[in-house]
Structure formats: structure tokens, C-alpha cells
């Protein structure tokens, strides 16, 4: 038993708010690739270095240059978009063994289209990185076989939609592993809407009355 990992304690540790995903710590994902951060400039190359010890041989500036630009420096929108997309794609690749390859390709295409700034209106903002981290953690928990339609809120939070117009759920993936959901369903011929807001880790609990599997997997008939 010595040195063994007791998973109950690990689960409790990981489900403790505010994070359920390792890279949801804002300080640890400043730039493209989320590689290192400014407080940890000595970090070596690594896409998930919040969890990987530094090694002196890879200290020399590698993490520093890979981590992008300090947030305090004003940057052109194009650079912000590059930064956000790079971060999202690398985070996705890191858990790529758990997401079908064809979905990854589609997902990257969706993210690129959402960030086509030539189509943007004044005031549109790039996706918030922390929002995407929440999205990934939910996808890994729910593992939907139906791929969602994606959008961006005015704050830069990712929106995911499953279902048909008369029976649809929209999730807004917010930083700090929180979710907001809106459900549009039909009852006695009337369109009924409901909404809620909760930690992402409690999603299944709060959605249980709605039988969410029929959105994620289109398996259950209603």
C-alpha cells in the first residue's frame, strides 16, 4: 500500500472548486500553448507545465518565449486570436487520445471559423481560454457522441448547442469550471424554456430530470 494513490481522495481533491481541470488556473496558461507562465519563467518546454517540474537544461528562455506575451501588454487583436487558438488546440491535443480524431479536426475548424475576425462586428472578443478549458472538462466527463454546434457569447465564453429547435440545450462554458444552461423544450404543444447555472462537475446532477443523454447521444426517444 505504501506509495499507492487512494483515488477517493484524489477525486475529492480534483472536484474541489474552483477548478476541475488542471489548466483552468489562469496563471498557468498565459500564452500560446499554455506553456509555462511568467511567474515560472524558468520552466522548460512543456505544454502542460503547471504539472511538470522544471529541468535546468531546458530552462534557458524556452518556457519564457513559448508562453507568449504578458497580459498587461496591449496586443493587436490578431495576436490575441493566435494566442487563444494556439492554446485551445494544444490543450485539445493533450487529451487527444480521449477525443476522436475526426472530431478534433472538426473542432479546430469550428474554432477557426468562430475567430475569423473579418466576419466580426465591433466589440467582438476572442474566446476566453478558461471557457475552453471548462468546455474540454465537460466533454471529457460527458463524452457526447453528438458533436455540438459552437458559438461565442459577447464575453468570449464558448457556447455549445445540442438538439433540435423544439428540444435543445445550450451550454455556456464559463471560467472557473462553471456552466450556464438554457433548455428549450415542448410540452403540450407549448415551447417551454428553463435555465440554470452551476459548477460543471454538477452538470449531470442538475440535468438529470431532463434525461440529457438524449441530447448527448440521441439514443433515448422522448
Amino acid at each position, binding site marked *: 500500500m505504501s506509495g499507492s494513490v487512494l483515488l477517493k481522495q484524489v477525486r475529492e481533491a480534483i472536484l474541489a472548486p474552483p477548478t476541475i481541470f488542471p489548466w483552468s488556473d489562469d496563471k498557468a496558461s498565459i500564452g500560446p500553448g499554455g506553456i509555462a507562465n511568467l511567474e515560472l519563467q524558468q520552466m522548460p518546454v512543456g505544454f502542460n507545465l503547471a504539472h511538470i517540474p522544471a529541468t*535546468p537544461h531546458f530552462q534557458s528562455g524556452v518556457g519564457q518565449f*513559448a508562453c507568449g506575451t504578458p497580459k498587461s501588454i496591449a496586443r493587436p487583436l490578431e495576436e490575441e486570436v493566435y*494566442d487563444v487558438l494556439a492554446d485551445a488546440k494544444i490543450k485539445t491535443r493533450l487529451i487527444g487520445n480521449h477525443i476522436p480524431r475526426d472530431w478534433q479536426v472538426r473542432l479546430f475548424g469550428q474554432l477557426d471559423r468562430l475567430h475569423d475576425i473579418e466576419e466580426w462586428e465591433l466589440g467582438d472578443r476572442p474566446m476566453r481560454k478558461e471557457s475552453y478549458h471548462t468546455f474540454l472538462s465537460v466533454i471529457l466527463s460527458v463524452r457526447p457522441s453528438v458533436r455540438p454546434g459552437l458559438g461565442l457569447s459577447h464575453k468570449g465564453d464558448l457556447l455549445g448547442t445540442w438538439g433540435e429547435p423544439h428540444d435543445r440545450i445550450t451550454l455556456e462554458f464559463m471560467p472557473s469550471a462553471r456552466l450556464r444552461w438554457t433548455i428549450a423544450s415542448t410540452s403540450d404543444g407549448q415551447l417551454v424554456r428553463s435555465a440554470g447555472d452551476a459548477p460543471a462537475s454538477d452538470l449531470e446532477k442538475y440535468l438529470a430530470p431532463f434525461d440529457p443523454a438524449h441530447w448527448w447521444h440521441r439514443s433515448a426517444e422522448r
Partner: protein
Amino acid sequence: MGSSLSENVQTYSRPPITEAVVEFRCKTIINDGLLSKVNKRFAGTYPSGTTVPVPKFHVHVDNRTGAATSSVSNTNAYRRSAHDEHDILLINPNSLVVAQSAPYPGWDKFFERVRHDLRIWREAGVTLELGRIGMRYINRIDIPDTAPVINPADYLKMSLAAPEELGPTISYATNGNFALSDLQSNLQINSGVFLPPPVPGYLSLLLDFDIGRELEVPQSEDDIISLLISLRHEKNRIFELIVTDKARELFK
């Protein structure tokens, strides 16, 4: 010189490598003009890119009065990428870093990139003496969280040894430094538990190799290639020594 050699290397269908990196580090700094030229030379291979400001801190102390003044200026580094962040290149004032994110495409493809990028770097005019050639492979082994307790020692032969009285651990991290005298190189291994786990429903173990040479660093392309092949062989040999059959089952 062949890159594959098709030696007796164990291959896996789902390699646990989350990141592979080769770094060529110069003994001195590349000037801004040349670095910008290098960046342009890579634009075809790596179409996406961004400039990363690197602050330089200068401190001047007057020998006579002891008065000190300081100033800050910026120089640039460059980060380039291709294929949706699968291929990444860091063009730094003192180094070139070729990085590969997951999924790992295999040594042959990665090595082809490394050779190509090294050649372009040099053809662009970087002829400074190399002070270190290094390689880093970060592995993450995802273990399904189906038992109440998981013993990392069942998966890695490099883990935590602790008195029984302490009971199960929540997490740990180990770091070992080893001399590879035959290669005049140094190896650093990190292993431990990712906490929190990156994938819900799994416990993830880290196995991270940082291997490199700083003594009598090869300078010619053939010698560099030869060293990289040797480092990779050694890294693979040690990987196989550390992982158990139970771990192999997870990614073969």
C-alpha cells in the same frame, strides 16, 4: 545517414507522448537582424506565427562611485506553428526549439522535421557554436480509475517509496538526475501523479525525460544527427526499463 535504422525499438499504437522536443542551444546570442531573417525563412514551413517580446535587463555599476543604474529593453523571439499546433518552432535569441505536440507522429517524421529545421536555421546564417543539444520527451500514462486504490509502482519502476504507516498517498513527484557517461550526456527523469488528473475518470502518471549533452558538443550536421539518434536510443531503452507490462497494456 539513416534516421530510422529500424532497430529493435518497441512501438506503440497509442504512444503516451504528449510532447517531444529537440533544442539546439548556442553559446552566444543571435543578433536581432539575423533572428528576424531566420523567422522569415521558416514562414513557408510554419505559416502561423507570433512575435514574443523578451525583456532584457541591463545593470550598470560605476566602479568609482559604486552608483548603479538599470534599464530595460526588449528584443524579440518568434513562435511559429503548423498543422493546427501539431508542429511548433521556437526561434529564440540563443536557441532553436523544434517541438511536437500530441499525437506523436513517430520518430521518423519528427526527426525529419528536426533535420530540416536545423538545416534551414544554419543556411539562414546561424553559425554560432552550439553549447548544448538536448531532447525532451514528456509522457502521460492515463490509468482508468476503476479501482479504489492504484499503486503507481504497478506501472512505473520509478515511483515513491514511503513507510507503510503513512498509508496511501494523494500525489507525489520524484526527480532523478543521471550521468550517461558513454554519451557524455546527462539525463533527468521526472515522474509523479498529475493532480488534478487531466482526464476525468483516469489517474494520470507523468514520465518525463530530459536528456542532453553539454560537453564536447558536436558541431557538424552529421555529428549532430548521430548524437540525436544515440540520445533517442538511450531514452527509449530507459523508458522500457521504467515502464511495466501493465503500463504497456494501456498504450500498445
